[in-house]
């Protein structure tokens, strides 16, 4: 039971990082990332390959995942920065699918659909509950660090520029903000955070495979961020833990439903996720922690 609780909290922390990523790009800047699962996968693979086959220490792997996520974020956004925002949605959706295809097919590079097993972890696994505890501390600290950093970034002049861009790019450009550059920076940082989340996931479970990074993960994170408040780091954090409780709750609820098969139970859970997202978008789009309007600083 304690192990299960630890697992849930670690997973919550990893989703909290993903939620911070989406909060920054979508909530604050207005750039929809429908390929979050792809950046998550990229980070997981970058770190796993480097530490398992390259023999690099785990911190180096985490760093590599951050860089890989950020660079991929820049590459994906560059083609759409000057276009309407729905083009970015199309491109990111395709990006995630392509990452999954590459991961499943380039056996020499990624292990193919068998995935990579025996990924090293930063703490010895034979500690048992101690391992869970240490990992929980690591993930939670990183999630809180991301929260603090993004809180600062968002209230900085750079953060104000992001919101200005979200509300009206033309006005922001007229006000002298380098719109394209700032958008690329925001998306790059967001994608880097998603990469870090992926690496943490791989080192925790010790096994990754292409199937784990399905588009459903992206919808999960949209649900978390919408529930918490899509432009508040605190909202994203709370939403992520809430999401894990909700998803695990549906698991128990589905097990209780009589006379349905495992496939049917799984599909009911996914329907619940989709419905929850629709209902939130319709009836509580600002989430639990709505964005506060910031007053301009007095000089």
């Amino acid at each position, binding site marked *: 039971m304690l192990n299960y609780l630890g697992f849930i909290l670690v997973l919550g922390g990893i989703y909290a990082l993903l939620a911070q990523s989406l909060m920054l790009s979508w909530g604050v800047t207005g750039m929809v990332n429908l390929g979050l699962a792809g950046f998550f996968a990229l980070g997981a693979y970058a770190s796993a390959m480097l530490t398992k086959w390259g023999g690099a220490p785990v911190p180096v792997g985490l760093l590599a995942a951050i860089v890989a996520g950020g660079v991929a974020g820049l590459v994906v956004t560059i083609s759409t920065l000057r276009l309407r925002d729905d083009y970015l949605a199309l491109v990111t959706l395709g990006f995630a699918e392509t990452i999954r295809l590459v991961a499943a097919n380039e056996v020499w590079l990624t292990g193919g659909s068998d995935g990579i097993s025996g990924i090293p972890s930063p703490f010895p696994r034979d500690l048992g509950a101690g391992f869970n505890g240490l990992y929980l501390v690591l993930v939670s600290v990183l999630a809180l660090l991301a929260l603090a950093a993004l809180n600062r970034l968002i209230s900085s002049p750079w953060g104000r520029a992001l919101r200005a861009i979200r509300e009206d790019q033309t006005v922001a450009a007229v006000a002298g903000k380098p719109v394209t550059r700032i958008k690329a920076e925001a998306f790059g940082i967001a994608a880097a955070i998603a990469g870090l989340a992926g690496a943490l996931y791989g080192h925790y479970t010790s096994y990754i495979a292409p199937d784990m990074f399905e588009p459903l993960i992206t919808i999960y994170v949209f649900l978390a961020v919408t529930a918490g408040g899509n432009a508040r780091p605190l909202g994203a954090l709370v939403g992520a833990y809430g999401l894990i409780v909700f998803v695990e709750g549906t698991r128990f609820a589905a097990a209780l439903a009589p006379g349905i098969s495992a496939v049917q139970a799984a599909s009911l859970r996914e329907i619940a996720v989709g419905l929850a997202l629709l209902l939130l*978008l319709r009836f509580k789009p600002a989430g639990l922690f709505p964005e506060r309007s910031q007053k301009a600083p007095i000089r």
Partner: protein
Amino acid sequence: MLQTLVNGLIAGSLLAVPAIGFSAMFSVLAYPNFAIGALASVGAYAGWLVNSQWGWPLPAAFAAAFLIAGMVAALAERVAIRPLSQAGALMMAIASLAIGLILENLLRFGFGNDLRNFDLPIARDLRIGELRIGPQQIDNVVIALVTMILLWLFLRRTWLGRSMRAVADNPDLARLKGVDPERVALIAVLIGGGLCGVGGTLIGLDTSIEPLTGPRLVLSVFAAAVLGGLGSIPGAVLGAMLIGLVEELTVLELAPTYRTASGFLVILLVLTFRPSGLLGARRA
């Protein structure tokens, strides 16, 4: 090589049907509908039920696919997506993603993940020299072409079709002329969703059906629509033909599994160098 060319054109003409549906919805509703994959699956299952469970002929299956997928799309638009229009196009796009997830899983709940096949007579491939073409493939291409011609006639010759184009072009002006944009939008979704359903059935006839039949198609459909120019219907047809060819070439030269990845590459290249696509209006 000739075989690849023919395969590409066949694949392209099947792809054109949902690509037109996606582009038509985009041009009238002004948001990308990410539920098209699931809608294609819905249509495929409707066609399959009518054909292999009730034993009706294929034309009835296509009519059922069009109607059911179209009505499901219109219902989703009315109940779940349109109410978000104040929040902007992106919110509507995200809602359509959720709709897609729900539809896909409703199918999975009802039919499971098993592969389903249409009730087709087994027939020998036609051989023309070195070329091999299945008779069903020829039928499929004919059906795709007929669908496109019907749509073209609808858009050119009927009052409703003309008002649809008017709303796509300039909603305010259309409103001044007495066109009700709400109603036109609903009809656009009905037709767009219906075309996705027909597209799903065509793919189902070519291969087999499962809940992911449609979603697997989505990247190719996007690529076709973007390459042709988002919102342009002739563009969607041209884009689909080219994507069909590119994908067959990828299968030949690279690996079958990268079929859809080539679509992604096309999207990136087009958006970087010519975002309006081949036949799109010059406003991105």
